């Protein structure tokens, strides 16, 4: 803590940017760096799946059915002879894409609502925050299930449902930050100099929300990956033959007795990915906003 305080003082004295200072602190945060390196590696493998894997994740190989892990197939094969490692890497593209877009949707929606409510206050604030209160009256998974039920079960719906269900929490915390920031003297000064509301919101207030928003979104990404996989596991998201991680777990359920590797490796991929994200999120929090440290 002392080191972090000294760090902020140094930053202020040197006029260092938030990003440079965050990076300097993160570099000396072993767990955060482990998360950053691990998650970067996962992203790299997943993005390069077409290059690093032998081929199509849905192509069958009837000569290699239900083979346990071996040197030829590191994660084994499934009942149709499909290589599990190939499918896990391709599946990560789907899981991560859905979760990333959902988090971006939540950030855009939550910042728009929270910024408007917090900045303008009054009736806009009352109406928007009552709406947020109603949405927060639903446990997240229930809100997601309601939306999936209404729009029909598939991966696109899951993306929309997760994005929408994360908005109320983002909106609430953004509003809180805006309420504190908008009373600062430099905001009054900007108004006195004739700045428009849009200008003040986008150039003076938004940068103050950025650090907590990045931390929040990073940790939210882990939850979004788990929810995406969980819904596909329940048969409400990606459908076979998709190699999405949750859909693979769902498919492997029928082969639990004979082919444990079909259920173990896709789950391990989710676990590793979420673990790296949580480590990175904790590291970013300590680096960007030590007050939030748990």
């Amino acid at each position, binding site marked *: 803590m002392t080191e972090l305080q000294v760090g902020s003082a140094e930053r202020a004295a040197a006029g260092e940017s938030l990003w440079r200072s965050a990076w300097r602190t993160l570099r000396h945060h072993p767990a955060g760096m482990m998360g950053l390196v691990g998650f970067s590696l996962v992203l790299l493998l997943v993005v390069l799946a077409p290059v690093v894997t032998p081929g199509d994740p849905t192509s069958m190989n009837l000569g290699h059915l239900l083979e346990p892990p071996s040197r030829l197939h590191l994660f084994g094969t499934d009942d149709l002879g499909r290589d599990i490692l190939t499918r896990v890497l391709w599946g990560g593209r789907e899981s991560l894409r859905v979760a990333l877009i959902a988090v971006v949707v939540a950030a855009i929606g939550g910042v728009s609502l929270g910024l408007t409510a917090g900045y303008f206050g009054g009736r806009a604030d009352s109406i928007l925050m009552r709406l947020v209160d109603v949405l927060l009256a639903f446990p997240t998974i*229930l809100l997601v299930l309601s939306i999936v039920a209404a729009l029909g079960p598939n991966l696109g719906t899951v993306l929309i449902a997760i994005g929408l269900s994360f908005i109320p929490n983002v909106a609430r915390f953004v509003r809180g930050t805006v309420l504190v920031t908008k009373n600062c003297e430099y905001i009054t000064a900007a108004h006195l100099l004739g700045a428009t509301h849009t200008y003040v919101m986008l150039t003076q207030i938004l940068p103050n929300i950025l650090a907590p928003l990045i931390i929040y979104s990073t940790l939210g990404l882990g939850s979004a990956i788990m929810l995406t996989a969980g819904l596909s596991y329940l048969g409400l998201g990606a459908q076979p033959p998709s190699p999405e991680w949750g859909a693979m777990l769902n498919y492997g359920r029928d082969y639990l007795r004979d082919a444990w590797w079909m259920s173990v490796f896709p789950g391990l991929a989710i676990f590793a990915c979420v673990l790296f994200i949580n480590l990175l999120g904790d590291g970013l929090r300590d680096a960007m906003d030590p007050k939030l440290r748990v």
Partner: protein
Amino acid sequence: MVMYTARRLLILIPILLGVTFLTFAIAQVTPGDPVALMLGVSATPERVEQVREQLGYNDPFLIQYGRYVWNVLHGDLGKSVRGQTDVLDEILARFPSTVELTVVAMLLAVLGGVGAGLIAAISRRRGAQTATMVAALVGLSIPNFWLAILLILVFGVRLHWVAVAGGEGFKDLILPALCLALAPAAVLARLTRSSILEVIREDYVRTAQAKGLGRRAIVMIHVLRNSMIPVVTVIGLQFAGLLGGAVFIENVFARPGIGRFAVSAIAARDYPQVQGVVLFTATIYVLFNLAVDLVYGWLDPRIRYD
């Protein structure tokens, strides 16, 4: 405290109205005609139209919503499309199983989480501190449905200690409850640790040390009691996590609770059932949060005057 309770109860009314409005509105935008679904493919368009008129589906939106709220207030959550059974009866038949699971999970989470947090905060051994915090991070990152599959693989498929699916004895409750408890236990462990570390620096703890009080007495009387205030709130919030987690766990272990009911209702596109279970669970959640707020106000009187 009476005024505080009354104020909190009044806030509940618009929230619950909003919840009914949202569940009703979602049902309205759902594609597909519930009457056509109910009557089956053999029904003629004339017959469908006649039943729509009879059941009031052709009335304006607000009239239908008003009727829905009136029925809900009288304990009528509608009839399922499949089999025309009473939705509330179906939910109430499954609710005890979910309550049993969540209560046992919550107990495990509180005992495990607070205990681990306490060890991490006051243990003099660095190894114990690190181990508990690593365990908490793993607990937060492991998908509970995957952990459930792993436990079934080991204890059901390999060791035959528990039923692979659908078991209803106490022995069969332990694994689902354990899977469900892991994430809230991890959250509680981290929070308990940070809360204790904050309280331990307070002046009154130093005073207790200065007057020669033993380490155990200081922790039990001064530190633990004062550090539990934020933990109690989070225990309440974690209840929502348990209700959500139950959706996955009940499905993996084939337990007959409302989480499994919700998923099968969605798969069958039985919207009255989905609507009923969503409204029921959200109401329970809101009431539980109210109870937590009241307990919090009672534990820390400063909250009541905010």
